């Protein structure tokens, strides 16, 4: 980049770039704090299953994946007594990443009315050990599911509110990405540019690099994120086009992996062999590619069994299942494709979730997404860095600046503390405590609120450094806490070949190192205090350093 080409480009580009730059700045700032949280919790959710395993230390480590057909048969046998009278069971078979059987069943209609103080959700869940077929008594926790649900519906907000809020943020993200690309005029020339130790310039270079390298991912993840909930955000097209119940059933068949419901006859009939049905599915898709067995009207003459394909071997979430007659075991329907539009949605959905990933691809997803988190974070910090140099008196900033600065601290450093506190809660709250799952979530929000109070009460720079050190300490001690409170400390996990536990412990230490590095960098940073008006300061600086042309141009590049 030379001064000559900067000035020659400006006359044509300035108008639209200036507008887009303002749009980018303010769209980004308005939702930036929530976006940062969505990005970070979403990133962690790529390892949701592993995190859930780590958060249920009472569930023993499984060395081998048992045969899905045998497991499905054993568990459905247990359910005939455990969930008698239920209109539907869903059995999620174990996978390499989630080695237990998760079962959901709807309560029998009479139960819901009779049981006033009990479960109002209308369904029950249980976890089974695939090796023994017995029910597992694991501690009650949302596990990695909490971060997952937080990232698109801000659990425990009411689902509808949370999802609308997330959609609002995602829409602004899309606006910020597109306006950011238009603003960034030297995408190719500055592709590999980083200018160290140049204050605002360095922040801008880092923000640009993080944005540009991950651009395909950022666009994909934002757009597909909106697509996953599109039926909720924009229902009108479907409402106008689809009116009759038959059409509605057709649409749901395109999108839903649950076969259409069927009325029970009331005549009792035993279930046929589930084992044989799963074997047929395995023959079609592969031994480990059966995801779920759903049994509708079990024990009734009108029983139906749907065996659904897993998520690991295809880049699509479109429904694929085999439908069987539950009493005769006869194959009734093979659902293996959907229309082009529905398939487009299925592929986008799958791209967002990345559940098809092997370990290599999952790490790529995680790291690029972490880069996206850093992109949002650097963007937020840059807002204050740029304005601090223009403040009349940096020691006493105006109210807006003060608010943004403190919210940045709580949103970025505070979130790390809160997320780690959630994991601490998982180990410290007694395994049999009542409502412990909700207590863990409360702990997360409590810790987060505490960091905000802390950020409000301390000088900004000290608050950054101290909260980053607190996060470092919590992260560093977490594997030790794990070793003290469970029998599955790092050495034990290594000896047992339990790579999920080893991975989580090591990853936590890696994140601790990252936070320590950030804390040290912040502590070493010496802000240049400019008490003079901006222009005078620039002229003064011009006499001393050769960087000034770069800094002076900054305000024109990205005001």
């Amino acid at each position: 980049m030379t001064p000559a080409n900067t000035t020659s480009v400006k006359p044509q580009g300035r108008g639209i770039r200036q507008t887009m730059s303002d749009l980018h700045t303010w769209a980004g700032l308005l939702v930036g704090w929530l976006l940062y949280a969505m990005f970070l919790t979403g990133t962690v959710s790529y390892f949701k299953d592993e995190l859930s395993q780590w958060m249920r230390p009472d569930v023993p480590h499984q060395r081998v994946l048992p045969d899905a057909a045998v497991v499905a048969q054993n568990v459905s046998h247990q359910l005939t007594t455990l969930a008698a009278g239920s209109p539907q069971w869903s059995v999620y078979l174990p996978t390499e990443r989630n080695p237990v059987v998760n079962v959901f069943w709807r309560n029998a209609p009479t139960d819901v009315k009779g049981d006033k103080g009990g479960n109002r959700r209308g369904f029950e869940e249980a976890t089974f050990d695939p090796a023994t077929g017995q029910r597992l008594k694991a501690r009650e926790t949302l596990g990695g599911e909490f971060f997952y649900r937080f990232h698109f519906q801000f659990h425990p907000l009411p689902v509808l509110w949370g999802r609308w809020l997330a959609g609002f943020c995602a829409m602004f993200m899309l606006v910020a990405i597109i306006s950011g690309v238009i603003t960034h005029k030297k995408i190719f020339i500055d592709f590999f540019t980083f200018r160290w130790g140049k204050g605002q310039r360095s922040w801008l270079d880092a923000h640009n690099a993080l944005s540009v390298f991950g651009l395909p991912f950022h666009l994909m993840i934002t757009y597909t994120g909106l697509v996953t909930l599109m039926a909720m955000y924009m229902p009108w097209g479907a409402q106008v086009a689809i009116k009759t119940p038959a059409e509605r059933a057709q649409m749901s068949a395109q999108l839903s992996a649950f076969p259409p419901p069927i009325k029970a006859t009331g005549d009792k009939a035993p279930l046929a062999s589930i084992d044989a049905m799963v074997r047929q599915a395995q023959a079609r898709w592969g031994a480990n590619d059966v995801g779920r067995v759903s049994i509708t009207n079990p024990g009734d003459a009108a029983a139906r069994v749907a065996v659904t394909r897993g998520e690991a071997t295809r880049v699509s979430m479109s429904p694929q299942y085999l439908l069987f007659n539950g009493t005769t075991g006869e194959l009734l329907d093979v659902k293996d494709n959907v229309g082009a539009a529905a398939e487009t949605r299925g592929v986008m959905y799958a791209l967002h979730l990345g559940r098809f990933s092997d370990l290599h691809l999952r790490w790529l997803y995680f790291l690029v997404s972490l880069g996206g988190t850093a992109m949002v974070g650097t963007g937020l910090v840059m807002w204050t860095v740029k304005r601090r140099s223009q403040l009349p008196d940096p020691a006493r900033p105006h109210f807006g600046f003060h608010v943004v600065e403190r919210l940045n601290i709580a949103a970025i450093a505070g979130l790390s503390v809160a997320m780690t506190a959630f994991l601490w809660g998982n180990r410290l709250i007694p395994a049999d405590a009542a409502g412990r799952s909700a207590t863990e979530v409360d702990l997360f929000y409590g810790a987060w609120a505490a960091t905000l109070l802390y950020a409000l009460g301390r000088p900004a720079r000290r608050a950054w450094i101290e909260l980053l050190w607190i996060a470092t300490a919590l992260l560093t001690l977490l594997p030790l806490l794990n070793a003290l409170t469970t029998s599955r400390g790092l050495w034990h996990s290594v000896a047992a070949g339990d790579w999920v536990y080893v991975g989580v412990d090591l990853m936590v230490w890696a994140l601790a190192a990252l936070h320590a590095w950030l804390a040290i960098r912040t502590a070493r940073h010496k802000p240049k205090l400019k008490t003079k008006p901006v222009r005078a300061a620039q002229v003064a600086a011009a006499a001393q350093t050769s960087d000034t042309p770069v800094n002076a141009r900054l305000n024109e590049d990205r005001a």
Partner: protein
Amino acid sequence: MMHLYTFAICLVGFAALAMATERQQEALFHGVSRVRTRQYRRIGWTALVVALGVSVVNQGWGFGLVTYSGQTSMAAGLVYLALIVAERRRSR
């Protein structure tokens, strides 16, 4: 194993593209040469196309494109970090 090959090709591609920029040529060769820029660009883009081809042939369009997209992002990021480290060393 295949992942490593395609990732390595992406790394070569981005390293070459970095060498094609004026800033890096100034730093490494103390001067910008048009011939050099063109050659490095050609190497860089060829490597990226080859990596895409290898990915798609090995894993099909779906998985191939997703993997390629992730690998290019990571490779560009690694080259970028390497350049920063190199520059920091030079300036010491």
